[in-house]
């Protein structure tokens, strides 16, 4: 069979114009599909940046919270109640809120301020400059060195700024796994300093971060929190909740889905039509092979091989092109939110398989119907 497949390969790639058209069609379709899905994955990843960066196992929140940025304050008793629940190893308060900081040159910059539990500093970022203990110093803040860092005029340890007429000073520079979605810098401080510096409503706890004693306790903790009138979600559930919000309640998901489907249809049309034309042009030759003694399954194998080879080559090139474009885009636009996930690759692969299957189906049907006698009749 190897020789027959090699024959199919040569028949395909030696027809340079058709082969190029096929490859370009599938590459372009894969590129568009992956690009759309990568953009969406990038948006979703950044929307869940705080959840990913803090890494708590369970997040307790008001049931109306849809995204990590839109917090609804909870009263202090919730923290105490959670701490006393069965199965809880420990629970800490967590603050997340927006603020304007006045920089040295007098300009204002919006920031996200994260307040970590004063005792444990649970969810702290990885420091690359400074020491952790300095966060307990007067007016101390740790700045996150991500793509938004430059918006604070590239602060260093000792850089001062104002928050609500309070003096702030950078005591450390840290990194996190993911930048936020909204393109604003992040400052970390202690929970109580965050409350002191920022205007707050009556209830101040954004989230209670919980660590269960065992994985089996997660379900029990969720039940107890629900009885309290609040919502407890695991890290993955919270990320899914945020993703669902952007997918289904903002229109972003629908638009990306439409673009992805359009890319698929364009790819299917170009590749399907070109491959079918390729088979039609070679129909007499397939008939001649049949007359010479090629079996139907061998002809089917040839066509499937040609379609699969084209699809997989286009798939690889499409992914490569998309990766290069994202890389290039990040050189100019550090905030560019696009990530290629394994899920995206798998989905695009399924779509490419459908394109290859649909393209070859019509070709196979045509080839199986050709009678060798037609070749004799000319």
């Amino acid at each position, binding site marked *: 069979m190897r020789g027959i497949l090699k024959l199919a390969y040569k028949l395909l790639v*030696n027809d340079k114009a058709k082969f190029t058209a096929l490859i370009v069609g599938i590459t372009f379709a894969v590129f568009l599909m992956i690009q759309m899905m990568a953009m969406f994955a990038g948006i979703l990843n950044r929307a869940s940046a705080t959840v990913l960066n803090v890494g708590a196992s369970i997040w307790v929140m008001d049931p109306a919270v849809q995204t990590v940025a839109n917090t609804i304050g909870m009263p202090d008793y919730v923290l105490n109640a959670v701490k006393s629940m069965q199965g809880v190893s420990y629970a800490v308060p967590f603050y997340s809120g927006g603020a304007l900081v006045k920089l040295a040159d007098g300009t204002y910059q919006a920031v996200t301020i994260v307040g970590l539990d004063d005792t444990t500093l649970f969810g702290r970022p990885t420091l690359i400059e400074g020491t952790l203990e300095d966060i307990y110093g007067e007016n101390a803040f740790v700045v996150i060195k991500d793509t938004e860092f430059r918006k604070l005029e590239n602060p260093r340890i000792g850089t001062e700024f104002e928050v609500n007429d309070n003096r702030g000073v950078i005591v450390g520079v840290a990194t996190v796994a993911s930048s936020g979605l909204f393109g604003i810098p992040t400052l970390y401080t202690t929970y109580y300093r965050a409350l002191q510096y920022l205007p707050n409503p009556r209830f101040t706890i954004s989230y209670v971060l919980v660590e269960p004693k065992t994985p089996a306790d997660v379900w029990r903790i969720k039940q107890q929190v629900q009885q309290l009138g609040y919502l407890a979600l695991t890290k993955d559930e919270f990320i899914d909740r945020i993703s669902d919000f952007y997918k289904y309640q903002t229109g972003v998901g629908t638009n990306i889905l439409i673009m992805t489907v359009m890319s698929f249809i364009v790819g299917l049309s170009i590749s399907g039509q070109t491959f079918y034309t390729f088979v039609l042009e070679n129909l007499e030759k397939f008939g001649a092979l049949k007359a*010479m003694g090629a079996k139907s399954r061998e002809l089917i194998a040839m066509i499937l091989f040609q379609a699969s080879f084209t699809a997989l080559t286009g798939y690889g090139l499409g992914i490569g092109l998309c990766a290069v474009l994202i890389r290039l885009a990040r050189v100019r636009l550090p905030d560019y939110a696009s990530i290629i996930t394994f899920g995206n690759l798998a989905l695009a692969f399924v779509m490419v398989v459908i394109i290859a299957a649909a393209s070859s189906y019509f070709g196979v049907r045509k080839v199986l119907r050709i009678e060798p006698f037609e070749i004799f*009749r000319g």
Partner: protein
Amino acid sequence: MANPAITASGIVKWFGEGEARTQALREVSLEAYFGEMLYIVGPSGSGKTTLLSVLSGILRPDAGSVSVEGINIWSLGGDQLADFRLHKIGFVFQDYHLFPRLTTVENVAVPLILKRTDWQEAIAAAEEYLEIVGLKGRADLTPVKLSGGEQQRVAIARAMTSQPDILIMDEPTASLDGDTGQAIVGFVKENVLNERRCILIVTHDSRIYQYATRVLKMEDGRLTGVEKGGSS
């Protein structure tokens, strides 16, 4: 005359449905022998190509039987019939049907590749057959760069590579000028025909009759006579 290579009896073939139904072959019987070059001649639409297709296992007749080397080929299943064609029959099509995207030597190797011969071995064997037909120097060219006569010789080399017992040639001179056509058929008689091989040629080119062992005349779906050689 040697043993019969092909024995056909009472072949009937209809085409079409209803009022358009026409009978292409009417009770045709013939024998073709090893070592002979048998021509089937006649005007267009007389049923020559249909008969050739039935004899070579390509077109199933509505009635009658065809035995090749004692095997009733129309009792074989689909895959067996394909194997029969692959191993016993060599085809030279009227329009050659060479693959324009393959080199000449790869074209000649196609039947061997269908026989699952290793690619390199098939190419090596194909080169030998190209040498026989005098085209070794053209092995790496694509067919479009060859003249009509050269393409015909490539088609003959391709038909010979599987060393078939029966060589079927459909209008071998139709696309060639008179001299080239005669040279090709002369070449086939000289180099391809042997005691273990039977060559069947469908033609209406009377200029090549001189090479035939026998010439059977066909008209309106019937064998109507013998223009050269013995009985049908």
